């Protein structure tokens, strides 16, 4: 239903607090898969993507929806719940897309040398989040962790040299895995 605005947080303050703890945990410990449930967003937005949106978006953020995410139902729902602004990918703070639609990373905001934090975060729909053949290491990871990323290039091609760069949040239904710019990736 195109004008169905239900399915948001029932207790916005505490639900957002719990969702943020999970999101922060995921970003601080890349490879750890956390669960974000409780919302019923319009298709094709996943529950995890919706939780991230309602926790982090507001009238000061610029969002870009790519491919099939760019539809009226999603826009109306996000506008109603967050009051956020929509823009093009190169100007966006947050980009919602699928793993095969990330496109050229160097077309996104990667921050400046003085302010590398002024960079985009990409909230990616991923087909499967589990253990797998891609080895992650770096800050937040004790030794190494194996995850089900099948191709590295969408996340690293065109990624600027640290400290610049783009951070990724990989989502699949209610699952979320963080992939910040510091994480080293290797296929095994």
């Amino acid at each position: 239903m195109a004008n169905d605005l239900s399915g948001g947080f029932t207790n916005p303050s505490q639900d957002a607090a719990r969702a943020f703890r999970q999101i922060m945990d995921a970003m601080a410990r890349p490879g750890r898969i956390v669960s974000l449930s409780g919302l019923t967003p319009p298709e094709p937005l996943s529950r995890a993507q919706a939780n991230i949106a309602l926790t982090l978006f507001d009238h000061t953020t610029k969002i870009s929806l790519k491919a099939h995410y760019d539809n009226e139902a999603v826009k109306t729902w996000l506008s109603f719940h967050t009051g956020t602004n929509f823009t093009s990918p190169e100007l966006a703070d947050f980009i919602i897309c699928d793993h095969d639609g990330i496109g050229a990373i160097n077309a996104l905001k990667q921050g400046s040398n003085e302010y590398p934090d002024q960079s985009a975060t990409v909230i990616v729909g991923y087909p499967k989040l589990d253990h797998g053949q891609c080895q992650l290491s770096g800050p937040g990871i004790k030794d190494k962790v194996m995850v089900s990323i099948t191709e590295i290039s969408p996340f690293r091609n065109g990624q600027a040299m640290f400290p610049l760069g783009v951070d990724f949040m990989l989502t699949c239904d209610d699952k979320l895995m963080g992939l910040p710019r510091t994480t080293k990736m290797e296929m095994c």
Partner: protein
Amino acid sequence: MSNDYNFAYLDEQTKRMIRRGLLKSIAIPGYQVPFASREMPMPYGWGTGGVQVTSACLVPEDKIKVIDQGADDTTNAVSIRQFFEKTAKVETTTHTEKASLIQTRHRIPEHDLDENQILVYQVPIPEPLRFLEPRESETRKMHALTEYGLMHVKLYEDIAHHGHIATSYAYPVKVEGRYVMDPSPIPKFDNPKMSMCPALQLFGAGREQRLYAIPPYCEVISLDFEDHPFTRLKANAECELCSANNSYLDEVIIDDEGNRMFVCSDTHYCEARQADGHRGKRNRLDQEGYDATHI
């Protein structure tokens, strides 16, 4: 009864702004993220930055501990603990190992932290280069260019004046080989605990409006020289209440004749050791149960 406060005091828009900043600070370990710090119902210098970070991270299920220079029972710690009891209705504790979130002023607890804990530091001056270069535009550029020679000159001048690196607190560290960071005024005794720590470490500077972070399992190196390697510093004594010889000690004046005693700065650590039967030299009971060494 109506709840007069939003959960954890801050309004939702402020929390979202801090939360976005925290995620970027985690993605760039040691880098200072500017944020629009709010006025809090306490003066600057009393942990307004730490309180805002804690507010943004807190969930109703949290059990929080607040320490001020290691102590759970000083004014700052007690009032911040009460603040969150009142505004977030969360449980509080003094036990390091039972806390899910610890807000600290100037110490890292003696007890090892674990993966389920978050340590929030209150920071007065987040910029390690500030006393060497007062202009923010310049220090930004120095961080951007990894231009940290000035910091080494400062440590070298310590050696030239004192024969050793005399900086004993807020001792500069390098995080993951990139950003030089101020660990807040913790004693340099605590610096090694920051490296490869299983807990997430968050830093909030309210007046200076900066957030920064050390994700878990990060390499944090205290700056030094090959011929003057970093050393931990602690009073050459043991705790006179619990006899610990490996904890950070405070020196306390106990009368007007200049007598002093050394006690653990971490009150929970000291009390837990005493409960386990460890006794220091001022805390021993004689056979009748009287404190034989009481002055």
